[in-house]
């Protein structure tokens, strides 16, 4: 536990030095905030940018608060996922390439402790950033559109958190195999994208798979209660995360033994 704390502390110091502690929350906040704001100003934007003949009337239905928040989530699903992969891709690879990994493992450090200190730090950082930005998006939605109840926001928040943890775990998993940051980013995005695509390729099976998380979160926002597959999806996601963590530790153990 003492070693874990030391490594965990080191991770935070490093994140501060890289300024990841600042830019990551800022970027995710920007991505989420822009959705409700741009939806609110959509009529004005269309009016001033399109070359419609004079007298043309644009009538857009005003979306409900739940729809706006669901839009925010789907925005996060595309842009946010890419940002998370970019932020996580070089945590292990960089240390391996500049030799500090060798230095670290010349001391009695457990690989499990090492991996978990990194994983816990990344998860806390991203979930913190997501909490702030989702809260801000909720606040804006309540002001600009209609109110969304706290319970549905809270439920969708918890469901979506699992997706973020999954993306982080996949990226870390890939970075225990590869030695180049570019490769890590490419392969991780490929894996995450293929998980997301599964729901359109095999819709019958995919209702139980993590690819359904976005849909579930949207559903919860709209109807306030989950569909019947919610438990199955959450269970497979957690199982998948656990499996990835396990394989990652095993693989990493092999790669640091010389």
């Amino acid at each position, binding site marked *: 536990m003492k070693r874990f704390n030391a490594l965990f502390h080191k991770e935070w110091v490093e994140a501060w*030095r*890289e*300024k*990841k502690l*600042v*830019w990551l929350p*800022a*970027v995710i*906040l*920007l991505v989420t*905030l*822009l959705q409700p*704001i741009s939806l*609110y*100003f959509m009529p004005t934007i269309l009016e001033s940018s399109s070359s419609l003949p004079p007298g043309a009337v644009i009538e857009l239905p005003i979306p409900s608060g739940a729809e706006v928040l669901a839009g925010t989530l789907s925005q996060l699903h595309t842009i946010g996922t890419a*940002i998370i992969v*970019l*932020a996580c891709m*070089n945590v292990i690879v*960089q240390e391996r390439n*500049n030799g500090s990994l060798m230095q670290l493992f010349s001391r009695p450090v457990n690989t499990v402790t090492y991996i978990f200190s990194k994983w816990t730090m990344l998860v806390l950082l991203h979930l913190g950033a997501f909490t702030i930005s989702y809260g*801000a998006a909720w606040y804006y939605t309540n002001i*600009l559109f209609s109110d969304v109840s706290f319970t549905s926001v809270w439920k969708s928040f918890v469901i979506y958190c699992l997706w973020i943890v999954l993306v982080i775990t996949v990226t870390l998993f890939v970075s225990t195999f590869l030695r180049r*940051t570019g490769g890590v980013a490419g392969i991780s995005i490929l894996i995450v994208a293929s998980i997301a695509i599964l729901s359109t390729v095999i819709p019958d099976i995919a209702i139980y798979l993590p690819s359904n998380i976005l849909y579930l979160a949207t559903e919860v926002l709209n109807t306030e209660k989950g569909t019947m597959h919610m438990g199955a999806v959450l269970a497979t996601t957690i199982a998948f995360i656990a499996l990835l963590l396990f394989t990652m530790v095993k693989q990493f153990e092999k790669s640091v033994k010389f």
Partner: protein
Amino acid sequence: MENTVTLLLPVIVIQFLLLIIALISCIRAKETLGPKWAWILIIFCISIIGPILYFVIGQRKDAYK
């Protein structure tokens, strides 16, 4: 109009913050991957994406302080 400004204020502030932090960290770094002046240009000229690009691929881990 006033409404517009107050709504957009947080977004502008965050964007500005990102730019300033990226600039400071770029100028104070001993070395960046690639020429420093190019990174400063990128951070200034491409809003939002410029600073992110610098943070993700421009920094060198052994060149802090």
